[in-house]
């Protein structure tokens, strides 16, 4: 798709940065970790905001990292059309930074949850979902304590009207139900697009569903293949 060199931004407290690099490397994508204070390298053509606990999540998850100087560069790059993917804590950072609408907050269970979930692919005409067919059900794991997607009613209506929902939590047969909603997200939303379709965030971890030697599902590879 993009065929780009990816910078995986490492904040203090990021912990899925190495995993993202490994998964991208497996797909043949040139990726490297970039320490946030060093700024984006000049050759950055794609950006991953990886999972973890940036700044210990001591304020709201992602709130501190969203205000780090490198995020100015990320916003500028995104506005220029550089593909940006936020995963888990990266999704929280992305929404806190205003790259995508809504917010991610404490799970309905009030506990951290690490488990596989099913996602229904809502759109296939984006770089992140071109590998799938519409209505496909993919299995990708989550690992978060603050993944409940929250958004105002009007903004949610706009989101749906603009067709910016990428993935919804569903059961194995693709039914979007309350039982299949792991964290109480509005509309079972698991991932959304930014204003441009080159920007996306999602709570599930595609990098954990890519490597065939360890993963029970490799369904997440299709998302990362956007960078390939």
């Amino acid at each position, binding site marked *: 798709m993009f065929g780009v060199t990816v910078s995986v931004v490492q904040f*203090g*407290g990021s*912990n*899925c940065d*190495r*995993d993202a*690099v*490994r*998964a991208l*490397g*497996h797909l*043949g994508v040139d990726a490297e*970790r970039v*320490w946030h*204070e060093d700024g984006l390298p000049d050759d950055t053509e794609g950006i991953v905001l990886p*999972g*973890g*606990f940036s*700044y*210990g*999540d*001591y304020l709201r998850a992602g709130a501190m990292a969203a205000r780090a100087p490198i995020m100015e560069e990320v916003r500028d790059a995104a506005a220029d059309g550089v593909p940006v993917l936020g995963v888990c804590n990266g999704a929280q950072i992305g929404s806190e930074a205003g790259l995508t609408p809504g917010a991610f907050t404490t799970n309905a*269970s009030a*506990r*951290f*949850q*690490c*488990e596989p979930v099913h996602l229904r692919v809502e759109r296939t005409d984006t770089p992140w979902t071109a590998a799938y067919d519409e209505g496909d059900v993919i299995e990708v*794991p989550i*690992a978060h*304590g603050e993944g409940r997607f929250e958004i105002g009613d009007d903004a949610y209506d706009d989101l749906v009207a603009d067709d910016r929902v990428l993935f919804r939590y569903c059961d194995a047969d693709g039914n979007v139900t309350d039982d299949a909603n792991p964290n109480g997200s509005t509309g079972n939303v698991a991932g959304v697009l930014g204003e441009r379709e080159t920007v996306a965030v999602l709570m599930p*971890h595609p*990098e*954990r569903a890519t*490597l*065939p*030697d*360890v*993963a029970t599902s490799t369904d997440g590879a299709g998302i990362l293949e956007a960078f390939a």
Partner: protein
Amino acid sequence: MSLSEADHELVVAELGREPTPAERVLFENLWSEHCAYRSSRPLLGAFDSEGDQVVVGPGDDAAVLALPDPDAADTPASDRGADDYGDTYVTFGVESHNHPSYVDPVDGAATGVGGIVRDTMSMGAYPVALLDSLYFGDFDREHSRYLFEGVVDGISHYGNCIGVPTVGGSVAFHDGYEGNPLVNVACVGLTNEDRLVTAEATEPGNKLVLVGNATGRDGLGGASFASEDLGEDAETEDRPAVQVGDPYAEKRLIECNEALVDEDLVLAARDLGAAGLGGASSELVAKGGLGARIELERVHQREPNMSALEILLAESQERMCYEVAPTDVARVEELADRFDLGCSVIGEVTPGNYVCEFEGETVVDVDADFLAEGAPMNDLDSEEPTRPERDLPTGDLSDAFEAVVSAPSTASKRWVYRQYDHEVGTRTARKPGDDAAIMAIREAAEGEALDGTEGGASGDASGTGVGLALSSGANPNWTEVAPYDGARAVALENATNLAAKGATPLAAVDCLNGGNPEKPDVYGGFEGIVDGLADMCSALSTPVVGGNVSLYNDSAAGPIPPTPTLALIGTKRGYDAPSAALDADAADESALLLVGAGGDALGGSEYLAQVGGSDRFPTLPKAPGDLVATLAAIARHDATLATHDVSDGGLAVALAELVTAEAGADVALPDRVAAFDETPGRLVVQTTDPEAVAELAGDVPVFRLGDVTTDGTLALSIEGTAVEATAGEIRELRNVIQRELA
């Protein structure tokens, strides 16, 4: 607690004068049971810690093991030669955080994780896996649940935040832990020949550099606190002795440590744990046969007006002490700053005494070796435990089955491990809930970088590196009835967990938990678990390369059962393993087998815990080393579809766990002993080639249990009485912890 009269006299005789207040407190802490193993060291000689795989054995912050090359990873360790090991190393250590977790379950458990992770880092390793073995009072009790929820929350928050997956462990409930829960945490790290660091100071003139959190007045006297019985008012009175962890600082410390090792700046390292800076710095130089001169006011501090004693003893978390060449100090300071960590050059290594100065005054001046190693050993009386008689109740079998399957100790632990990030690091090939976890060590394959960021071998579905299998746990019911045989069974059970996934043992570490050793019956039980673990590990050709002793787990409610947590790692080629669920698609062409000899008694079983009665502990199988190798070979055989070890709850529970919504089992068992006996060293195997299993088994008995069915129902016949449960009913029974605590 203060320095005993006898210890005081020894110190005066060595120094030729009265100790200073700071020295007195240093001796009190470093000579405590927790640090000096005074009551247990005389027993620990029973453990065999040698082997070609052992690079660093007991005594350092963590043990270091060489991994076999992938081609030799399936071979039992006893059949390998020194050439079979490569230069990819794993570190392995275990620690208890029992008393702190009682007083403050969230922070107590969290700092236990932090401490064992830093032990890993100080060997130059990157932490890749955690295991937690937890023990609480009866699940029905409010207070047990409070502690259980708090401990799991503490481990979850800290471990998840620092990005180290918690991939296994155990949880047991027993009324003996009512006043004294146990939190035993093991950590595995990854390093190699070039990156290895030890805690042995190398040369006078080198600088001692403290990196990490600022030092405050937290956790004062933690080591001596850990070496006393818990008082009835411990929850309020001892709270200041519990430290509070900061996982965000720990994560930055992990990354900083990695950068320091990358640039080869660390000559020796020790993390600051029990007895704080005084403990870490004196042990570091003592191990190198050297001394130190430390200026305590140079330590970066969080609070004003701290005294020398407080700076020396505080157990503030997330701190490391490094020996650094003078020319490298500036670079270490730069890297600490990059990760936003405090850094102070506190002194240097010397050829003389261990000396601490504070504001121009010498507050400590002692021989480092005497301080670290001089504690006298205790010679304690012990009493042999008694053997119970057989008194087996005859109640309703269906009720008994339901009670055993839904007992919190045997039931599903999904509520626990769902709260742990068990996948971060993308190495977890077999997850919690299975018999053993398997981590992909791709670095052990040819041409892989240690940081695992090269694509390479991850493309192959089964993996070309070494699969590192992990298991930890102990069963308090077993060791309460029979300390010695129960501990042997604990070791065999962990090895059977590995074998169920096709792996052979590489090395073990242990956490030996006991009550007050000054009580002869308690010490007798403790002796039993030490000897039992040691003997079974020797029989399994598995070196015990490190461990931890936690005594004085005693409260107004009495002593805990002697609890020998064993953490075991093993290896296999590749990361694949048979499932722990029956395969319905192959129901018609497969056989359901039990491999391994059943026991002959129910002592220590969950069945007796549920229905009452007593019995002696079962006889354990002979030649356990060969048995485990045989079981592992059967698990690896191509025709093997599913495997599950028989342990807590016996065959009845093992079969219940194997059943799925699609696949059931139809099995007849002669009696209750056959259904509920917990003798380890046995596997249930679903295979399409029973002849091959029989051939691999050789002398090991193989029984045909019955058939795999396609109705998703477990249909048992015990003594001719039918006991049935559908997969849905079993799931509901096993879901007790989730249902109660959701």
